[in-house]
């Protein structure tokens, strides 16, 4: 055992004296750190996941029926029922355009499937789909045979969710027609992992939308021709086009606006956390004025007492910041699940990505704020006058 207590020992020993008060002060700092780090990390992760999703869409322009192009784009990207359709003949017009390198027909419908009635997204595709997404390789089974009627290929996650394998049968569509699982895609890390792919004509027939498409995904020969291509699409009746870049900018702008609001909340939470530390340390110092007087009597200088109290505050701040970082890392999954429920478009993948700079920055910010809150109690401890205090017998 150390015979001469160091400052750290003196500071931390006092934190154990009132465990509930210490725990509450630490929790206050932890919550504000969680909000701060969560906000910073959410933005980083969200933009990264969005970029990855857009990159893996395989096309730069999405052509849909007239309406809100951003709503249509977000529905296509996350998978769901797009309530408006374009005529399938539009696809031929688009494909004939000299600026188009490749295009694919998209037909999307959401419906319950499987024994547990999971809400699944069905995607009608043809061979061109594979040309735009060459990375979509089959983990097992094979691509549709011939017309492919009555066959389905499952995305990686869809196979896991429905617990189905190649050769199994699945009732699909409003009439619950059984389809045979013909293959399972490898994991792509995109929304495609959760989809059930059907041959396009079969999907259109199944959902009674013959000759209709949800959209057309287009890859251009040159990105310099994007604006010209959009103008040509604008002249087509009943269709509109949006580039993935436009979609990204709008979503990122929305996220940035939300981030400002979240940052303001984080600042308020940090202020409240600092007030918690100020309250805990002010009470602690007030209760120990006699002890500080005694310490002066046995040789402590004002700067010793100032440093000792500030070190105690720093320990509170550091413990809270570390706990907050841990809470962000662990609770990030929960926050992501919540976001997926309430936010219109959330890309797949990790949304809260804690990088070293954000983590260290948040810890330092929490620590500095806590120590700033500790300045007043530290000054009060340092300025204690021992003579009047020691006159009071405990």
């Amino acid at each position: 055992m150390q015979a001469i207590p160091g400052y750290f020992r003196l500071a931390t020993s006092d934190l154990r004296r009132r465990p509930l008060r210490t725990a509450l002060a630490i929790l206050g700092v932890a919550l504000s750190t969680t909000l701060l780090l969560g906000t910073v990390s959410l933005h980083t992760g969200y933009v990264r996941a969005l970029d990855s999703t857009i990159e893996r869409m395989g096309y730069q322009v999405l052509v849909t029926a007239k309406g809100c192009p951003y709503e249509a784009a977000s529905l296509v990207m996350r998978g769901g029922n797009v309530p408006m359709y374009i005529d399938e003949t539009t696809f031929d017009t688009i494909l004939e355009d000299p600026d188009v390198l490749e295009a694919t027909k998209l037909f999307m419908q959401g419906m319950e499937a499987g024994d547990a009635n999971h809400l699944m997204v069905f995607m009608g595709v043809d061979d061109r789909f594979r040309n735009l997404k060459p990375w979509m390789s089959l983990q097992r089974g094979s691509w549709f045979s011939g017309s492919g009627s009555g066959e389905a290929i499952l995305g990686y996650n869809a196979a896991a969710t429905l617990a189905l394998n190649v050769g199994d049968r699945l009732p699909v569509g409003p009439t619950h027609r059984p389809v045979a699982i013909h293959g399972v895609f490898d994991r792509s890390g995109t929304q495609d992992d959760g989809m059930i792919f059907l041959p396009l004509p079969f999907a259109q027939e199944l959902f009674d939308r013959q000759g209709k498409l949800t959209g057309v995904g287009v890859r251009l020969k040159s990105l310099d021709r994007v604006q010209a291509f959009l103008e040509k699409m604008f002249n087509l009746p009943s269709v509109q086009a949006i580039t993935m870049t436009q979609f990204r900018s709008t979503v990122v702008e929305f996220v940035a606006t939300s981030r400002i609001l979240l940052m303001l909340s984080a600042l308020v939470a940090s202020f409240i956390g600092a007030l918690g530390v100020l309250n805990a340390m002010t009470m602690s110092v007030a209760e120990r004025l006699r002890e500080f007087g005694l310490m002066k009597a046995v040789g402590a200088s004002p700067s010793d007492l100032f440093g000792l109290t500030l070190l105690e505050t720093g320990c509170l701040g550091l413990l809270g910041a570390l706990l907050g970082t841990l809470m962000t890392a662990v609770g990030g999954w929960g926050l992501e699940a919540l976001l997926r429920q309430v936010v219109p478009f959330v890309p797949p993948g990790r949304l809260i990505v804690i990088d070293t700079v954000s983590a260290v920055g948040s810890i330092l910010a929490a620590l500095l704020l806590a120590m700033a809150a500790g300045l007043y109690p530290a000054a009060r401890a340092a300025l204690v006058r021992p003579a009047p205090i020691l006159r009071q017998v405990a």
Partner: protein
Amino acid sequence: MAEISGLWKSYSLSAETVEALRSVDLVLQPGEMVALVGSSGSGKTTLLSLLGCLDRPTRGVIRVQGLEVQDLRERELTQVRRKQIGFVFQDSALIPTITALENVGLPLSFAGKSGSDVEAPRLMLAQVGLAEKGTRYPAELSGGERQRVAIARALVHRPSLLLADEPTGNLDSENGHRIFALFRELVAAHRLCVLVATHNAELAGMADRRVHLRDGRMVNGGSG
């Protein structure tokens, strides 16, 4: 040695001024144990605070080991307390969250000796008869034991002057005698000046001499 001459201390309480000490003179010699007696409010604690550099006099001179301390800056007063003065209070005033041994080591911690003199607290604790109780926390010790820990803490940095304010006030008669007997041993062993304030006439009789304060004035015994 310590010496005070012409010492005055006034306090302002609301509209009136209270003269806690009035022209007090006192000389303490090395190896001498002096009992400071007087009723409550006679100025004993004020005198100890001034001599211990915890407060400043209104007028007069205080010398500790030949150094005039009444006009020193706070930083210099801290140095005097660290090197020359040990305090014992009525209620022992131990820090409850550290062990008895760590309490004894506290003055060395503030003197910046965390890395050296590590055996001094153990030796001091052994000297007051509590070598086996170093790992106990104050709440785990009896009143007499706590006061002996406080005495060990007051002496661990080898001060020249030990000031004790009613050190037996919270103890029974037997423990009170033990504490005074310990003071006598320490005075002999370390050639200390000990100034001990007490109400107890019997214990005061164990000192080399008595100094009597009444209403802030020294009635007798100021010269050694």
